[in-house]
């Protein structure tokens, strides 16, 4: 079945099952591997993308339900001229990543939080439930506060 996905401003018409998870349509069919597979049951957040600006766990969303919406992945977060999103810049300044595998999802979740709450409290940041097995939480928190200050 033809499923048309608009990802990072580009349109892809895919011949896939309507219930293929958006995660696998993005990774295997379109070939954008920045969005990661960690659990498949929406527990870990490594698969977080934005759908019309809202952070969603793509492993648990059928690709067909995202058709016609604006999907942003980590690859599409920086601006077209390569300027990093303030969250990405804060991540670089604080040297947040270690292994890096969860970080696309963390950044997408943080970017969505900041859009909704430009000055998040620590309690707001606690609401990000993405898992990091390397335990970079202390620097993630600091980077989100830093990005909030930068945007302001």
């Amino acid at each position: 079945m033809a499923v048309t996905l608009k990802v990072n401003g580009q349109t892809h018409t895919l011949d896939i099952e309507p219930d293929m998870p958006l995660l696998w349509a993005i990774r295997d069919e379109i070939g954008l591997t920045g969005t990661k597979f960690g659990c498949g049951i929406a527990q870990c957040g490594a698969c977080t993308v934005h759908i019309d600006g809202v952070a969603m766990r793509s492993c648990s969303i059928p690709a067909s339900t995202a058709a016609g919406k604006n999907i942003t992945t980590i690859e599409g977060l920086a601006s077209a001229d390569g300027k990093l999103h303030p969250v990405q810049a804060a991540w670089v300044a604080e040297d947040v990543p270690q292994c890096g595998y969860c970080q696309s999802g963390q950044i997408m979740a943080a970017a969505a939080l900041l859009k909704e709450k430009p000055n998040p409290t620590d309690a707001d940041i606690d609401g990000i439930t993405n898992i990091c097995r390397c335990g970079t939480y202390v620097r993630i928190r600091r980077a989100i506060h830093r990005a909030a200050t930068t945007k302001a």
Partner: protein
Amino acid sequence: MGHMEPVRGDDALSRRKFIVAGMSAAGGLALGVAFPGLANARPLTGAPWSNDALAIATEVNAWIVIDPDETITIRIPHSEMGQGAATSNPMIVAEELECDWAKIKGEFASPNRNVRENNVYKDQNTVGSRGVATSWQYLQQAGASARARLVQAAATRWNVSASECTAENGAVLHKATNRKFTYGQLAADAAKVKLDKEPAIKSPDQFKLIGKPLPRLDTPVKVNGEAKFGIDTKQPNMAYAAIISCPVVGGTLASVDESGLAGKRGIVKVVKLKDAVAVVADNTWRAMQGLEALKINWNYGPGANSDSDSMKTMYRETLTEPMIQVRKDGDTDPVFANAGKVIEARYEVPHLAHAPMEPMNATVHVQPDRLDVWIGTQNALGTLQQAAKASGMPQEQVYVHNAYLGGGFGRRSNNDEMVQAIAISKEIGRPVKLTWSREQDIRGDRYRPQAAAKFRAVLGPDGMPQAVEAKVAVGSINRSQGRPVDNGIEGQAVDGIVNSPYKIPNFYVGGQMKNTHLPVSFWRSVGGSQNCFFYESFIDELAHAAGKDAYQFRRAMVDRVDFVGVLEKLHEASNWEKKLPKGQGRGIAVAENHGSVVGTVAEVTVDNRDQVRVNRLVVAVDCYHVVNPKIIEAQMQSGAMFGLSAVLYGEMSVKAGQVQELNFDKYRVVRMAEAPQVEVYLVPSGGPKWGGIGECGTATIAPAVGNAIFSATGKRVRELPLKNVKISQLASL
């Protein structure tokens, strides 16, 4: 090197100034900090493995390539799993090279070249916290050797003596005549220079780069999706596979009913292995769906008779068996025989899974004359050797392309997934990417062993221990992996107790190893992960029995400089003497683990529903020498969070031989809301040894938390994880 300022990040602006000031000595600006918007800075690329070529024209030696545009590429022998080897290794080489750090790029050293060129990159096994500790000398030597050859190449061109030339900031200068050649101009000649003798390497007091908190080289590609992990591999004509192994380890595949695959799109083949079945398809999801459509019958085997209760009983009973002695100071028997009061305790912990964020995976292409493997492995050379053995291909024809690892923690040096992928690739005659689901990743894990310990002690009239007896029962990693055990006991079985620094006149340590059907292996901090919980909790019990402060009790028993430094820093930094409100407690634990001395103070709150909240962790570590303090701070925080997940939630419960916690809903781990502040203090005491950092951060978390719970409640936790413990119902001591 003395005491260093704490590396805490709450003063980001002043640290940024420090970084820029620090960098100007090396002549360059830290790109990530000075130019946060510079998306083009790529010291490490998204796909950082080398192309396996032997010596290329712009190499000065196997470790260093210098291009005409002055870019310097350093080959990194170790794996990058988040612990920072891809930054620390180049820092050590660059220290000697006298170059512009801003011009440094990194590349993962080729294990195939390692095989073909007489082991030039040496041991690539990135385990045991040994990376920097075992390689700093030859990494320094590689940089020094290249520098000396560049100098000689310039000297030859100028027809002067090398002693008249200096290497500075990426160029060789003959100051007397104001002449200069850049490294890029000299590289080709330098490669041909034969030195009469290799130069001496710098001593730590001469370091200009080592010790600086330089930004990581891989950060730019880890914030924009460019960093490639094994799971991201795509090769021409590649098929995709999913696999399930027998849910009872040790069982075998009996039969498979494939009828559920009828009409399913994209299925290529069903591949049966001895203990597993795989579905190959044209994308990952279809392979996973195909697997779920199979009806599989297993011969579960004898492991099906095990469950959590039977396994716990086995370890408890093993504690009553004769022990193999590993340490005997003085003689504990007469002390116990004549004692009035003997303090006794038994401690227990379950198996634990590694659960790195990237599930295990391997992409393999078996060809008539070569084998290519794309993977994230902790041991690029070992994986090549394992692939050669599994495929029957000579090692010289095996190419392992090591990617960034999405977490290692000790799991990624046994490449079970690669062995499966090789079998599948052979059967379908195409490249195949095998991706383990999260359930398969945990089902197919090699766990941190289950263990139990029994302690007895007698205190003297001064309240200090006169005799301590420690007995442990634990799963054997060596036996599980088919390696020999000398004298019935292996080092990791007793590590964390046998190497206790405490001055106790009569001290006995013995152990006995028993395995269940579950495979066991190295899990971050290894023996320390259980033994430090056991021992530092019991030492705390003794302090309490003596009516002494937990810090003072320990401090009185150590005289080693490293232990004293860690203890005193913890005492100061945690504000140990300050009284905490009711319901809050503070606990301390120290240990030697993987070459460093580490300690933690935990502050916890225990509420009236027995919920434990860890509010603050204060960590001190003496690793003797510091390569990158920012990376060390990150690693100590990382080890702490890993240990915290284990103490709060971690367990593999077993029913009918099957591990129950197969995904993050049941195998719970710490998330942001539970993550405490972790303050890290580095107290390196210098000397001939360089300590490890990858693992020790985990070792003292469980006892510090347990001891803090005691401080808050008067209840002693002797079994983990805490989620199973009703603290208020524990007996008061």
